[in-house]
């Protein structure tokens, strides 16, 4: 019996992911640390500004966790939301948990808070890199229906380890923005198959942009998160040179279509990938 990670709220995911009953929230909803910027737009605030943060155990290990609620403002990062994430990361430097887990579901900067959100995302990135520099792994889980985009797509790729389900998406710009900018020929945002081939978990697994691919099941995310606790990857010159070489090699591919890219990577019968289940795709990208 599986529980869909995508269909759970952020708090439900958190409760089911960590050891039962172990989540202790910092700055809980009753503290009413809400956005100071939404009322002027006629929008209601959320008591937790769309992110729940705190401490928990995972497989008995102390972890610091944050879960973004994708349904509130698309999970966008606003001033308070971002400050909660930065506070959590700063606290990790002091508390030295086994890992920091980020259940990411976000469109990136909360446009309704524009400038404040942009600065906030950048503060999250810097604080995350401080945590990694201290030897504490940061693990990002991506499996919500809204995906992980924009500034949060950058934050995700600053982490040690990214776990995605096939439902999850990880990218920079949303397909609608690309279509609005360069036309439907460039990116038909209503072609769901195209969107998932280009930015979804299976594609990111096959190119190596996520480190673990799982089913849309909270238990599968939990197992992957526990395994990732030992996946700290120090950021060194050697690591960055290796990353650079790998990314530079991608430019040798001339097209914009996923199936062609997978075929160029040597994946047999690439056109079938979208129809394969997670286990089969995992095997195809095994490393």
């Amino acid at each position: 019996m599986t529980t869909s990670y995508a269909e759970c709220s952020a708090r439900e995911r958190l409760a089911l992911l960590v050891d039962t009953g172990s989540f202790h929230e910092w700055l809980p909803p009753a503290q009413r640390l809400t956005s100071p910027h939404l009322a002027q737009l006629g929008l209601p605030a959320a008591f937790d500004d769309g992110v729940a943060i705190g401490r928990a155990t995972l497989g008995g290990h102390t972890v610091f966790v944050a879960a973004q609620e994708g349904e509130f403002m698309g999970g966008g990062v606003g001033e308070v939301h971002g400050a909660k994430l930065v506070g959590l990361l700063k606290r990790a430097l002091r508390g030295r948990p086994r890992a920091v887990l980020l259940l990411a579901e976000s469109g990136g900067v909360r446009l309704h808070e524009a400038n404040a959100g942009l600065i906030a995302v950048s503060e999250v990135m810097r604080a995350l890199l401080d945590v990694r520099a201290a030897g504490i792994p940061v693990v990002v889980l991506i499996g919500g229906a809204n995906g992980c985009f924009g500034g949060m797509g950058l934050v995700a790729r600053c982490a040690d380890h990214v776990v995605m389900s096939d439902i999850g998406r990880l990218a920079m710009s949303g397909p609608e923005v690309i279509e609005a900018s360069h036309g439907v020929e460039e990116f038909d945002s209503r072609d769901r198959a195209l969107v998932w081939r280009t930015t979804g978990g299976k594609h990111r697994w096959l190119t190596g942009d996520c480190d673990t691919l799982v089913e849309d099941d909270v238990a599968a995310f939990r197992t992957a998160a526990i395994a990732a606790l030992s996946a700290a990857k120090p950021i060194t010159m050697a690591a960055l040179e290796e990353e650079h070489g790998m990314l530079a090699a991608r430019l040798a591919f001339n097209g914009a279509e996923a199936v062609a890219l997978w075929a160029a990577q040597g994946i047999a019968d690439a056109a079938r990938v979208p129809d394969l289940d997670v286990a089969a795709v995992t095997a195809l990208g095994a490393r």
Partner: protein
Amino acid sequence: MNQPGLETLDYALPGTRPAGAFTPVLVGVVGSGNLEVLLEPAAGGDCRVHVETSARGFGAIWSAVVSDFHARHQLAGVQVSIHDMGATPAVVSLRLDQAAQELKP
């Protein structure tokens, strides 16, 4: 030009079932067609309800939903705080009941 603004509504209804002390309860999510409800202990014998909603002009419906909720639960000494983004009365009632349900030991 359209001048957006949240509508705020407040109610205080005398209850007969004291909720006593409890850890605040949160149910629901603020999203399109949805709402969140925070339930906290409050001094006095009322069930106080504070609503902030982006769907303006539905005061009469909120009154009715809140009255019905109070008729079902009769809570005393609680503050109910709502952030709403256009949920239907059925969804509002559901969330309120879910919140009240979490008070039962």
